[in-house]
């Protein structure tokens, strides 16, 4: 398995992607599979940190939470932009927090989430100490962010990976 299909998840996703892009026909399934295997094989040479999925079921939950969070942030950031950045209600700034996660893939997913969410920007991450520097557009208090990230995302991510 690992020799022939070094990244089964990746390859499966690629096959899916191929079918999405082309058409759901047997021909494309074959072609897509070949390409996916080839791509997986190539990526294996780079040996990025292989993710270990512990609990698949948490993924949809995470996705829903993220989608809603992003929607909410969209609205709030839009409001900031409409009202103007000089509005006294808002002030932006850096937030430092420490992550418990160490799995690179999990951290990458968290980075995607935080970056995809308007209003938060992932600026710097210290790999050794797990120290994360965020920039927040609409800053209320440091603690809010610490707990938000710990409870909402990190917990779930720890559940999925590791």
């Amino acid at each position, binding site marked *: 398995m690992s020799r022939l299909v070094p990244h089964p998840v990746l390859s499966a996703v690629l096959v899916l992607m191929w079918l999405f892009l082309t058409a759901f026909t*047997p021909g494309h399934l074959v072609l897509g599979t070949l390409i996916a295997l080839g791509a997986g094989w190539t990526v294996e040479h*780079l040996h990025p*940190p292989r993710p270990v999925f512990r609990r698949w079921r948490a993924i949809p939950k995470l996705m829903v939470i993220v989608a809603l969070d992003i929607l909410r942030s969209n609205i709030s950031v839009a409001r900031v932009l409409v009202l103007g950045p000089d509005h006294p209600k808002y002030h932006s700034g850096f937030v430092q927090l420490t992550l418990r996660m160490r799995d*690179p893939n999990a*951290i990458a997913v968290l980075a*995607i989430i935080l970056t995809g969410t308007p209003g938060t920007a992932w600026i710097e991450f210290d*790999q050794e100490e797990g120290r994360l520097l965020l920039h927040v557009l609409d800053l209320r208090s440091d603690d809010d962010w610490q707990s938000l990230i710990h409870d909402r995302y990190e917990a779930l991510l720890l559940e999925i990976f590791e």
Partner: protein
Amino acid sequence: MVEQNLLLMLVLTPFVSAALAATLPIGARNAEAWLAGLTMIVSLVILGVLYPAVTGGENITGTVYWVSSIGLDLTFRIDGFSWLFMVLVAGIGFLVILYARYYMSPDDPAPRLYSSLLAFCGAMSGLLLSGNIIMLVVFWELTSIVSFLLIGYWFQRQDARDGARMSLIVTASGGLCLMVAMILLGQIAGSYDLDAVLAAGAKITGHRLYPVVLILFVLGAFTKSAQFPFHFWLPNAMAAPTPVSAYLHSATMVKAGVFVLLRFHPALGGTDLWFQIVTGIGLTTLLLGAVVALFRHDLKGLLAYSTISHLGLITALAGIGTPFALVAAVFHIVNHAVFKASLFMAAGIIDHETGTRDMRRLSGLARAMPVTAALAIIASGAMAGVPLLNGFLSKEMFFEATYVWNNGGSLDSFAPIVAVVAGAFSAAYSLRFIVTVFFGPPATDLPQEPHEPPLLMRLPVAILVAICLAVGMFPQQVLGTWLQTASLAVVGPDLPRFSLKIWHGINAPLVMSMIAMGLGALIYLLPRRLIDSGEDGTRLLRRLDFARGFDWLLQSLTIRLPRLALRVLSTAGLQAQLRVQVLLALAGAWFVLRRLDWNVPMPQIGASELVFALLWLVGGTCAVGAAWQAKYHRFAALVLMGGAGLVTCATFVWLSAPDLAVTQLLVEIATTALLLLGLRWLPKRDQEIPGDQSFVSRSRRARDLLIAVACGTGMTALALAVLLTAPGASVGDWFLRNAYVEGGGTNVVNVILVDFRAFDTFGEITVLATVGLTVYALLRRFRPAPESVERPRPQLDAEEQALEAYLFVPSVLMQWLFAPIIALAAYLFFRGHDLPGGGFAAGVTLAIGLLLQYVAANVRWVEARIVVLPVRWMAAGLTIAAAVGAGSWIFGYPFLSAHARYLDLPLIGQVPFSTAMLFDFGVFALVLGAIVLMLIAIAHQSLRVAPRARPAEPKEETA
């Protein structure tokens, strides 16, 4: 037939011998001399065999066809005139060779001398015998070239080099003039055949171009025959070894000019212009040469100017052009050749035996070398025109010609006086030669003790002097018939009967002769001390140094002026070159299009136009911004350029060119990557460039801005002009209709690229491959700017982290992204034929994906994991493309004929397959290889230049 072959042999033999002579060993003097002497004898024998036919008035011709289509055939003809001249060439040639055998030092490389002499003999023979006026020029130029080699024989000497160069420039230029004259003559006469040209005299002299032809012609003749004002090369040619001077520069080659004057007299002569020019110049030269000769201290210099003077005499006779004058000219050619050759040889003997030719040092040699002295004195007498010697007779005839001649011009009454004065000077320098060299007290400070030369060295002189005497005393018996035949050939059938006699009674010429002799004695003897010890020539004559003038002119015209002109007319600067291009394009387009009717209808503005306009407001701003920032803010300019590129992409999307959009996007990314990779080696500019705000710089920019605005406006106008005309039927229509049926794809653009015009694509990938190789080769020897050798500052900061820490999260993502990028490449590749995409897009995509891995980590990291052999990919790509193209040969179709069919595969069903797809795969492979090669070759520079203090990882060669 035999005669024709003999005629050809006459020209050919010397050349063959010359080739042979060149191959002999360097010291083989005797062998060389035998070879050359035999060649001359062969020539003489042939001439002897031909004699009866020639005197019989037969016109023998022989032809070797060469470039018949332009009338350039080696036609040879011999008549009395050329026969006589040939006898001179071969006869004096033989004597010169005999003489040279003893004259030349054993150290001198013999093959070069003898082969050159033989080649000269051949060229001269060709010139004399040529029956084709162009071939005449060919041999004419050959004599100049050989003369150049002979004058430069002792090329270690500066004077030899300079003399050789000067003579070649003067005579070859004249030859070129002669060539044009001959072409025009040939055109007017309707043939290059000499006889035809000579017969077309009336037609020629009546032609509107006659003056032009004549001037070009005499330029040729005068330069060769050292006529004023081109005479100066001849004295400088005296740097040649004396045998050469005797042969070429007195007896034969310099006579070529007067030869053609006489030869072409029937065609060109007889007009007033001819008289004025030829006689005028001839008399001037005659006088000038004689005067200067008197003041030369160098023996050979004296003889050279004397030669100039005598050539002037012959030229003047040719200009007079009466039958009698022409006969006199022919006669004097022979006489002069004989006595001047002997004098040169004598001078050479003196030089050889005493080690000097300076008359101020030579004295009383009659005691040491009585025989030589006697010979030289007799020859000098001939030169002076002393009775009972051959020179006397022809000079007499010359005096008579000037005296009798009367065509009413001013020159006409002047001529006898000039003749007498020149004769006087001639007598004077001859006398000086005799008196200073052979009489007086014996010289004391000579480099060598003088004594008689070997007998065989003296022999040629003796023979020539004997001829002088023989002709002088028995002219009719010795030379009468030959001269008759020769003159007949020059003058034509209306040649008056003449008889060569010593005594004509007391008549005007005799009186003139006597006056000249007497005057000559006075001219030399009265101011003798002044002349003998003075400087070379009078002050006036020194001022009138034509050689110096020529050299100055040459320096000015061929070095100083060209250098100046080159500075003015050319530029080494790139900006100016590009500006010229741009301006010419602008001017050309304006010139062509100013007549176009610029009737632009008001555009209709709708919502989509507004959007499009806004889009280009952005694009234009980016472009102008990039132009504005490119000097000081390279990074900003790059980003702005990216914006302009993006808007261009959007335009392609808007205007129905999805393939272009995709390709442009991908190329855009690759270009940005390249430029940023390059920017690392372009040290940042953080100071203003000195003088950047000066008035000059500003006005320069203002000018360029004006040009740029004009170009922009022009392109707008041009594009608009086309866009506003309705398109006619075009090849594009056919592609649209037939792409699917004939090409088997719905994406017409892709079908064009891989099928209809696949050859373009084939070429295009070759370009990419070549550039890739060039970039790679160039970077192998890359030397960075010193300022950028160090690692960039951000990496040097002590507080900064290693790369891995920086890129921790992004690099994880980028590594994962490699897989979808590969899939995307495959997607673009497979879609190509039907939808936007194709091999090129796929190749660039994959290359970018790979680049991303390099960015995400570092070179060593990536190359320890993935081995890309870009050059192999390129080779494979090109080979595949070519093989697919050639595959169609198997089926009898031309290269790159595509074949498409559906393959039935189990499980999957019908799968379209096309050879175009294989071709496209070749494109893919090449593009991948080439782009990766370029990107990585640049990326690798960082490794070469600044080795990191990192644990070395196994590095694999990528190419």
